[in-house]
């Protein structure tokens, strides 16, 4: 047993391939047997992943889900930013330039709209919860943009650390909800073509959320949504500590 654990731990990435492979297999089985194919196998796999992460986080007290369980550390490599970005870029293979052109302008508009709308919603909820200083309101608003924009903004304008932690939590909620919610609402928001996928990516912005949500909806939409989503966090980091902060400061 000790030898087995040693082998598994020493070959983290390989273990991750095996574990994720089994998870995906179980998910497709569940999709076919329990939901008659109505819920896509990849959606179930992502939810199983999130559930495993919640369970692992509660057991270990760590912040990286199952990665904090020694034998599963390789999952962190497989699901880390490096592999995620490599995978996302590879999905662009086969994308039609003509479709990208079609959504060009409206795609850019959607990125601005997404950042501003999420910020306003987050800021209003901060006010509703009794925050009155511009720094806290801006930081929580920025957290509703993405969990990267929150702490970047909060650090830049000098928000307190508990407010920064809140902004990260808001961003993580957003990202997870997009992963789970997208396949459920796709039908109702017309998310079935490249153009609306680009608008979707621009509005949601959270790269992990968009990547997971579209993968669970229709993998062919992933490159279009990811294309706009990757500009969102950059724009948020640009606007959060500057123009959005100045506007909030002028208002309170």
């Amino acid at each position, binding site marked *: 047993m000790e030898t087995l654990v040693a082998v598994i731990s020493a070959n983290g990435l390989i273990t*991750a391939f095996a574990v*994720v492979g089994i998870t995906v297999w179980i998910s*497709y089985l569940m*999709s076919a047997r329990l939901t008659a*194919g109505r819920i*896509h196998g*990849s959606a179930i*796999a992502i939810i*199983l*992943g*999130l559930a*495993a*992460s*919640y369970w692992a986080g509660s057991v270990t007290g760590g*912040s990286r*889900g*199952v990665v904090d369980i020694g034998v599963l550390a390789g*999952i962190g490599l*497989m*699901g880390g930013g490096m592999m995620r*970005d*490599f995978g996302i870029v*590879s999905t*662009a*293979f*086969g994308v039609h*330039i003509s479709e990208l052109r*079609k*959504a060009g*302008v409206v795609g850019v*508009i959607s990125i601005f709209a997404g950042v501003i*709308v999420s910020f306003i*919603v987050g800021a209003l909820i901060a006010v509703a919860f009794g925050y009155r200083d511009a720094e806290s309101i801006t930081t929580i608003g920025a*957290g509703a943009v993405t969990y990267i924009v929150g702490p*970047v903004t909060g650090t830049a304008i000098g928000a307190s650390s508990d407010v920064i932690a809140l902004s*990260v*939590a*808001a961003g*993580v*909620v957003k990202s997870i*909800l997009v992963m789970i*919610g997208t396949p459920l609402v796709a039908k109702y*928001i*017309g998310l079935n073509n490249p*153009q609306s996928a680009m*608008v*979707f990516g621009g*509005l*949601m912005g959270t*790269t*992990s959320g968009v*990547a*997971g949500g579209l*993968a669970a909806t229709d993998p*062919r939409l992933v490159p279009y949504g990811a294309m706009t989503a990757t*500009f969102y966090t*950059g*724009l948020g*980091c*640009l606007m959060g500590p500057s123009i959005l902060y100045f506007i909030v400061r002028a208002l309170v």
Partner: protein
Amino acid sequence: MIIYGVALLAACLLTGLYVGELLGQLLGVQANVGGVGIAMLLLVLASSTQRFEPLVTGASATGINFWSAMYIPIIVAMAASQNVVAAVDGGLLALLAGVAAVVVSFALVPVLSRFGPQSDPLPPLDSTPGTPGTLATPSKTSGGV
């Protein structure tokens, strides 16, 4: 050679991330601005350029298609390494802020999608377990779009 396709993919990502970092520094932002998006554009351009044809057809294409088929498993691994506990424990404020931002953004998708030229809905997927592998069908596009 499979490695040619994989190397092209790697080169696109590295170039994109580098340009994204430079853009971030230029704008004074502590983030990579659109690096992955730029990398995707580079790959799309490369796969429709005559000069790169040996890198995006035949066995080389297999190298790229392998990674796009690995995309969903990678996302599953990513989901398993999220800080879900923090999201659940963030309290009502974090929950409400996250949920409200998502709901409002969802609602805006059909509103904004109405602008500009429309694209047709994709044909329905055949939901066999193998579908992730079919997400990139470059055979028709790689020659020149």
